[in-house]
């Protein structure tokens, strides 16, 4: 079967066209490359995922009250800890980053007297019996509270998430992700103005 040749009736583009297109494509490629390179540099120089300080509307505000039963059934309140620095730590036993940060919290709490710096663990979507077993296995003797409303009051978006509350009961910092003892020490020093 013979092919039919249909003559081109529309004017051909100027001769300089393809050359100009190649030029444009080259500049677009250079631009895209520069953006990708900038992204790589940005991601590579970001701080590690631990001790990440994140903004929150409640930073600088009075900490919302946390109140609920502790692991022994007695009522635990955040306001009862007024006068000392409190690290409010939202966690669950099924959360892997929480499991990883727990030894760091143990180290941090051992470095500071409890009447000066206190960790307060808030159970997030977990069973108190599992939490008791978790503490028995991994250590840690700070108070634990079961208050399901606290996650809304503090605007928690995921776990682990921690809030440093100063001795006057004001939220000073929000930390998302796992924490480290060294990071918390540095944070505390800066918060105390030392």
């Amino acid at each position, binding site marked *: 079967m*013979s092919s*039919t*040749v*249909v*003559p081109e*009736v*529309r*004017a051909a583009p100027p001769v300089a066209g393809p050359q100009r297109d190649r030029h444009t494509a080259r500049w677009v490629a250079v631009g895209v490359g520069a953006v990708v390179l900038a992204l790589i540099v940005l991601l590579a120089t970001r701080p590690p995922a631990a001790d990440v300080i994140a*903004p*929150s*509307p*409640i930073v600088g505000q009075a900490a919302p009250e946390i109140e609920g039963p502790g692991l022994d059934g007695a009522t635990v309140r955040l306001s009862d800890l007024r006068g000392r620095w409190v690290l409010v730590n939202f966690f669950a036993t099924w959360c892997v980053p929480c499991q990883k940060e727990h030894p760091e919290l143990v180290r941090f709490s051992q470095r500071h007297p409890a009447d000066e710096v206190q960790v307060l663990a808030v159970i*997030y*979507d977990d069973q108190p019996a599992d939490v008791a077993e978790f503490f028995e296995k991994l250590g840690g003797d700070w108070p634990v509270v079961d208050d*399901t*409303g606290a*996650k*809304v*009051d*503090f*605007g*928690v*978006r*995921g776990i682990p998430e921690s809030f440093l509350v100063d001795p006057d009961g004001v939220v000073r910092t929000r930390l998302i992700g796992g924490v480290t003892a060294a990071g918390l020490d540095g944070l505390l020093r800066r918060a105390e103005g030392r």
Partner: protein
Amino acid sequence: MSAPGGSPLRRWLGYLLLVPVVGVALLVGAGGDDAGPPTAARRAASIAGQVRCPTCDGLSAAESESSASVAIRQEIRRRVDDGETDQQVLAFLVGRYGRDILLTPEGSGVAALVWALPVAGFVLGAGALILTMRRRRSEPLRSATPEDRRLVEQALGR
């Protein structure tokens, strides 16, 4: 047989009949849930529908069964029962989570870009399309030369 399209009245009759049908459909679609006075449960559900699930993607607090969304729904219901207005409840949640907890972006500040960019994109795209089509139309048409005609005749086997 009548001329194609018929009289103007007959031509527009279909469209005229569509008006009440579309109107009723819109009324049913938009107002179906609003029958009767707003109860506390309905108000709480409506507010939860305007709030993002803080721990999941693409779901409202009304749709998600995550513990964070369940807690938000309980808090909303408690505040509605306490007599707070919708705006007060939403303001409380914004005060805890930040403005991005709202599913509907604000119409001012940087968030307004969410509304403005699609419109700007549409206008720019339509403008570019019109310009391209005009330019194509204005391109000179080259008339076939005798050589072109000969080639066509040859190809068609005449």
